[in-house]
C-alpha cells in the first residue's frame, strides 16, 4: 500500500499514476488540512508561454501533460493561447516572442472575433490548452474512487509515503518558500472569449482563462511573501484594470470569487521529486501545478514500480 498525502493536483496526479500502474493506493488528507491551492490555479497548460521565465525543463517536459489531461478530464480545451499587448507595449510582444518558441504572429480578431478592432497583432501558441481545475480535480478523484482508492483523514496505512502536501510540508523542506498568488473569478455576460488570453504589460501582466458559460478566471499576482491572507485591494484593482484593457465588457462583470494562496516553490522554481528517508516528496509546484504534476507523477510511478520489481 502506498499512501499519498494531500489531495491537491500533485496528490491526485500521483495517486492516479500509481493506481494506473496497478499499485494499491490510499489518499490521506488530515481533517484540518487547508483547501488545496490548486483550486485557485488558472488551469493553463502552456508549456511554451511559460518558457518566458521558467526553466527550459518545464517547457520540454510540460508538453507531455497535455495528452495526459486530455485523456482523463472533460474540461480540457485544446484552444491554444493568444498573447496580446496594448499598442504602446508592442515591444513587450517582441520580447516575449524572443523568449519563447512555437508561436506565430496573428491578427487577434481572426481568432477571437469578440476582440474586434482592439489589438493589431498577437502571438498565437496553437499547441497549448486549458482546463477547469475544479472539474479536473473532481474527475481524477472520481476515477480514483472508481478504482477503489480510498480517501480518508488518516491515520495512514501505507508502507511508502508520497508527500504531496504542498506548503504544509514546509517543516520537512526548509528551502521551500511561499509565493503569493491572487486571482479573481468573474461572470462576464458581455465577453465571449474562447481561449486563454495573456496580456503582456510592464507592470500589470495578467491572463484570462475562459471557464465556459461566460465565467472567466483572471490571474495572477506573484509576490515573494508567505502571507496567504485574503486578496488585496491593489491586486483586485490591477487584475480588473488589466482585464478591462483586454475587453471593456469586463467592466460589467459580476465578481464571483476572489482568492489568494501560496504557491510552494523551491529556489529554482522547478517542481521536483525529492527523497527523504522512506518518504518521497512531490512539491515545489510553483505556478506549474497542472503542467508538471502529471510529469512528476509519471516519473514517480516508474520509480516505485522499479523498486517493487527489484524488491521482489
Amino acid at each position, binding site marked *: 500500500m502506498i499512501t499519498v498525502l494531500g489531495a491537491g493536483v500533485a496528490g491526485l496526479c500521483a495517486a492516479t499514476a500509481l493506481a494506473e500502474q496497478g499499485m494499491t493506493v490510499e489518499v490521506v488528507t488530515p481533517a484540518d488540512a487547508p483547501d488545496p491551492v490548486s483550486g485557485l490555479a488558472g488551469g493553463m497548460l502552456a508549456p511554451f508561454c511559460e518558457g518566458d*521565465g*521558467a*526553466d527550459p525543463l518545464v517547457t520540454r517536459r510540460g508538453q507531455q501533460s497535455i495528452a495526459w489531461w486530455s485523456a482523463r478530464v472533460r474540461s480540457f480545451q485544446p484552444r491554444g493561447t493568444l498573447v496580446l499587448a496594448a499598442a504602446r507595449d508592442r515591444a513587450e510582444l517582441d*520580447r516575449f516572442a*524572443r*523568449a519563447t518558441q512555437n508561436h506565430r504572429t496573428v491578427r487577434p480578431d481572426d481568432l477571437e472575433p469578440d476582440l474586434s478592432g482592439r489589438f493589431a497583432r498577437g502571438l498565437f501558441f496553437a499547441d497549448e490548452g486549458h482546463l477547469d481545475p475544479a472539474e479536473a480535480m473532481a474527475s481524477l478523484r472520481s476515477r480514483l474512487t472508481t478504482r477503489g482508492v480510498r480517501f480518508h483523514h488518516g491515520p495512514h496505512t501505507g508502507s511508502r509515503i508520497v508527500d504531496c502536501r504542498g506548503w504544509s510540508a514546509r517543516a520537512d523542506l526548509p528551502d521551500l*518558500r*511561499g509565493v503569493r498568488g491572487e486571482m479573481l473569478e468573474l461572470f462576464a455576460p458581455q465577453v465571449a472569449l474562447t481561449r486563454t488570453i495573456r496580456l503582456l504589460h*510592464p*507592470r500589470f501582466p495578467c491572463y484570462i482563462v475562459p471557464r465556459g458559460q461566460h465565467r472567466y478566471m483572471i490571474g495572477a499576482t506573484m*509576490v*515573494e*511573501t*508567505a*502571507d496567504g491572507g485574503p486578496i488585496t485591494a*491593489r491586486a483586485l484593482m490591477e487584475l480588473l484594470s488589466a482585464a478591462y484593457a483586454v475587453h471593456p465588457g469586463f467592466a460589467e462583470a459580476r465578481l464571483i470569487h476572489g482568492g489568494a494562496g501560496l504557491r510552494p*516553490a523551491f*529556489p*529554482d*522554481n*522547478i517542481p521536483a521529486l525529492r527523497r527523504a528517508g522512506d518518504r518521497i516528496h512531490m512539491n515545489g509546484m510553483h505556478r506549474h501545478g497542472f503542467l508538471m504534476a502529471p510529469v512528476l507523477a509519471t516519473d514517480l510511478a516508474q520509480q516505485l514500480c522499479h523498486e517493487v520489481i527489484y524488491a521482489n
Partner: protein
Amino acid sequence: MFYDRTLSSRLMLGTAQYPSPQILRDAIAASGADVITVSLRREGQEGGDFRRILKDSGCRILPNTAGCHSVREAVTTAHMARELFGTDWIKLEVIGHADTLQPDPFALVEAARILSEDGFQVFPYTTEDLIVGEKLIEAGCRVLMPWGAPIGSGQGLRHLDALRSMRAHFPDIPLVIDAGIGAPSQAMMAMEMGFDAVLLNTAVAKAVDPVGMARAFGQAVVAGQLAHQAGLMPPRDMAVASTPIFGLAALA
C-alpha cells in the same frame, strides 16, 4: 565611499522580477555586484524566505522604499527595513506620479530629513535637479541617486547635459545613476561621465538570459570606471592621424 564604505563593485543590482531565486543568485554572482536592493512595501513581514536567500548572497543589502507614495509610508517602510535587515542604509523612494514613477522631491526631502535625524544613511532616488540635490544634502544625505530615465523604461541617460551639470556641481558627493538603464552601453557611459555607481534591475531581470546580461553589465561598469580613471580623450573637430606620414616604408 558610500557612507564610509568602499565597494568592490560599482554596480548595484535590484532583486525583483527574476525568473527564480536561483537565477537571481547566479545573476548577482555573474554581475560581481556587492550591493543589492530589496523592496519591502508589498512583501511585508512575511517575505522572510526570500529575504533569507538575499542575505545568503553575501552582498550588502540596501533595502528600498519602492512603491511608497507619501512621507509617512516611506518612513514606516524604512523602519521596517532597519528591523528586518539590521542596516541603517535605506534607498529612499517617494513616488510622485503613478505613471512616470517620478520622485516627489518635496516629500523626498522631508522624508530624508526625518530618516537622517533618526540615524539612517539615506540613498535618495531623485531627479537631476541641483537645488533638490542641495536640499537633500542639507537634510543629511551623503549620497545622491539621480534617475537616468523613468524606472523600468530602459531609456538610458535621458538628460545628459543635466547629469553632466550635476556631476560638476557635486564633485565630492557620491552620485549613483538609479533607474532607467536598459543596456550595458548606457551603464558604461554613466561611469565614463564620472558617476560613482549604477543601480539597475529590470534590464537584467527581464533579459532573456538574466545571468548573461548581469555579466555584461558587470563588465560594462568596470570598463566605464577604468575609462574614466584613465582619462578619456576629448572629441576634436578635425581628423588627426595617429600614424606619422613621414618615414613610412615605400612598398613598391
